[in-house]
C-alpha cells in the first residue's frame, strides 16, 4: 500500500512538472503571425486594343496609325513560407500595325502612307517575363522586394532589374517606400526602306531598290541619312512613395518618380521631311529626308497623388492627379476619377473619366516643316501638343467563397473594362480588358 502511494505520489509530481513545463512554453512570447499570402494566386489578364489616327510617325506625321494588339498575361504569386512571396509574371502581346508596315510601303506595289502594307514590319510579337521576390518582416512593418525582367520583340530587347523597400508605421496608418530600377535595352535598328541604300554600305540611287521605280518631284533624291552607331538605351528610375490613412473612410498617397534615360532615344524607322528640302516621291509616297533625331539623354520627373474616399457601403470615389515634366520641354497634367458602385454584394460597376494634356517637345515638327539645319527633330505626334479625354466602364464580380472552380483553382473575381480614348488631334483608341483572379484550394 505504501509503495502504491509512493508510486502515485511520483506520478502526480511528474504530471505537475509536465504541466508547469507546458505552461511555461505557453507563456513564451509567440505572437501569431498571419501568412503574407495564404495560398497560391493566379491572375489571368487579357486585352484587345485598337487605335486609328492620321499622323503616323513612321511616315513623318501623316498616314494611318491603325494598330491592333492582343495581350495575354499570367501572374502567379506563390507563398514560399509565412513571409516570402515569389511572383512570376509572363506575358505575350501580338500586334498588327499599319504604320510600322510602312517602313516598307512598297511591299504591295504602290506606296501610300494612308494604306497599310503587308510586309514583315506589319506585325510583331512582344514577350515578357518578370520575376519578383518579396520578403515581409515578422511584424509586417517592413517589406523589401527584388525584381528581374526580360522582354523581347523582333527589333528590341530589354533586360531590367530593380528593388524596393517599404516601411509601415504609425499602427500601419503611414507607409513610406523607395524603389529603383534599371533597364538595359538594345535596338536592332530597322530603317525606312528608301534610306537603306544611303547607309554605310549602300549604293545610293544605284541600289536595286530604285531599279524600275520612277522618282517624281526632285529626281536627285539625296537624303541626309546616317545610321546610328549606338543602339543601346539605358533607363534608370528612382521613386519615392508615401501613403497615409486620413480617416476611417479616406486614404491618400503621393508618389515621385525620377527617370533618366540615355542612349538611342530616337526610333530608327520614324521618317522626317524637311521643309527646306525639295520633295521626292515614288508613286504617292513621299521619300524620307532623314529619320527622327532626338537627344541621347532625357530626364523625366513625375509627381502624382491619389485620394480614395469610401462614401458608403455602395459607393466609393477614386481620384488621381499627376504633374509631369521633362527636359525635352514637355509638361503634362493627368487627372482621373472612378466611382465604383456596388450593385449587389457580388457585382460592382466602374464608371470612370480621365483627362490628359501635354505640351509639345521642343523638337516636334509637323509633316514637312522641320529644318535640315536643326540638330534634333521628330514628327511623332505622341510628342506633340494635345489633350485627350477617356471614358471607361467596367463590371466586377467577386465571390469571397470561390465557389466556381477551374481544376484546383477557385475563381475569386472577374473584371471586365472598356475604355474609349479620344485626342483633340485625329487619333482615337478603344480597349477592352479582362482579368480573372484564381485562388488555389
Amino acid at each position, binding site marked *: 500500500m505504501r509503495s502504491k502511494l509512493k508510486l502515485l505520489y511520483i506520478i502526480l509530481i511528474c504530471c505537475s512538472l509536465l504541466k508547469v513545463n507546458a505552461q511555461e512554453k505557453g507563456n513564451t512570447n509567440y505572437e501569431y503571425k498571419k501568412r503574407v499570402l495564404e495560398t497560391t494566386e493566379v491572375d489571368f*489578364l487579357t486585352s484587345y486594343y485598337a487605335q486609328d489616327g492620321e499622323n503616323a510617325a513612321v511616315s513623318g506625321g501623316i498616314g494611318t496609325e491603325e494598330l491592333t494588339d492582343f495581350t495575354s498575361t499570367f501572374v502567379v504569386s506563390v507563398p514560399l513560407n509565412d513571409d516570402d512571396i515569389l511572383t512570376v509574371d509572363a506575358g505575350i502581346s501580338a500586334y498588327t500595325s499599319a504604320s510600322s508596315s510602312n517602313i516598307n510601303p512598297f511591299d504591295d506595289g504602290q506606296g501610300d502612307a494612308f494604306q497599310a502594307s503587308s510586309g514583315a514590319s506589319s506585325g510583331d510579337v512582344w514577350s515578357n517575363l518578370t520575376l519578383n521576390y518579396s520578403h515581409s518582416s515578422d511584424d509586417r512593418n517592413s517589406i523589401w522586394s527584388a525584381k528581374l525582367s526580360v522582354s523581347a520583340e523582333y527589333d528590341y530587347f530589354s533586360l531590367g532589374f530593380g528593388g524596393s523597400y517599404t516601411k509601415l508605421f504609425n499602427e500601419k496608418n503611414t507607409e513610406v517606400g523607395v524603389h529603383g530600377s534599371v533597364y538595359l535595352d538594345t535596338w536592332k535598328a530597322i530603317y525606312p526602306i528608301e534610306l537603306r541604300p544611303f547607309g554605310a554600305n549602300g549604293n545610293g540611287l544605284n541600289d536595286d531598290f530604285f531599279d524600275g521605280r520612277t522618282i517624281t518631284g526632285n529626281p536627285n533624291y539625296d537624303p541626309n541619312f546616317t545610321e546610328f552607331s549606338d543602339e543601346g538605351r539605358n533607363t534608370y528610375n528612382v521613386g519615392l512613395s508615401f501613403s497615409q490613412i486620413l480617416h476611417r473612410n479616406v486614404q491618400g498617397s503621393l508618389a515621385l518618380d525620377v527617370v533618366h534615360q540615355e542612349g538611342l532615344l530616337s526610333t530608327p524607322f520614324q521618317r522626317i521631311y524637311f521643309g527646306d528640302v525639295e520633295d521626292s516621291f515614288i508613286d504617292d509616297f513621299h521619300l524620307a529626308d532623314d529619320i527622327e533625331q532626338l537627344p541621347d539623354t532625357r530626364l523625366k520627373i513625375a509627381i502624382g497623388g491619389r485620394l480614395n474616399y*469610401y462614401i458608403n457601403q455602395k459607393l466609393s470615389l477614386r481620384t488621381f492627379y499627376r504633374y509631369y515634366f521633362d527636359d525635352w520641354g514637355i509638361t503634362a497634367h493627368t487627372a482621373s476619377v472612378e466611382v465604383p458602385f456596388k450593385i449587389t454584394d457580388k457585382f460592382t460597376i466602374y464608371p470612370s473619366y480621365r483627362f490628359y494634356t501635354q505640351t509639345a517637345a521642343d523638337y516636334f515638327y509637323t509633316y514637312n516643316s522641320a529644318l535640315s539645319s536643326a540638330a534634333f527633330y521628330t514628327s511623332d505626334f505622341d510628342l506633340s501638343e494635345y489633350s485627350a479625354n477617356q471614358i471607361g466602364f467596367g463590371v466586377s464580380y467577386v465571390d469571397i467563397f470561390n465557389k466556381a472552380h477551374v481544376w484546383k483553382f477557385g475563381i475569386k473575381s472577374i473584371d471586365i473594362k472598356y475604355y474609349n480614348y479620344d485626342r483633340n488631334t485625329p487619333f482615337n483608341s478603344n480597349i477592352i480588358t479582362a482579368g480573372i483572379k484564381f485562388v488555389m484550394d
Partner: protein
Amino acid sequence: MIKRILLTAIFTSSLFSCVVVKEYDKVNLNDPDMVLTDKPCDRNITTMHSYREAASGANGGKTGGGCGCN
C-alpha cells in the same frame, strides 16, 4: 518651385497629425475599391498610356524599358 516644395512639405507633415485609425476600424479602408493602386485588369490601359503619351510614372505603371514605339 520653392513655394511648391514648401506647400508639399506642409501638406505632407499635416498628414501625420491625422487621427490614427485602429486595425479593427479599417473595414472600409480594406474594401478592394479603396486600394491605392490600379486594379490588375487596368495594367494594359496604363501601359498603353505610357506608349501613347509623353508622361509616365508616379502611378505604379511603366516608367521605361521595353520599346512601345508602334
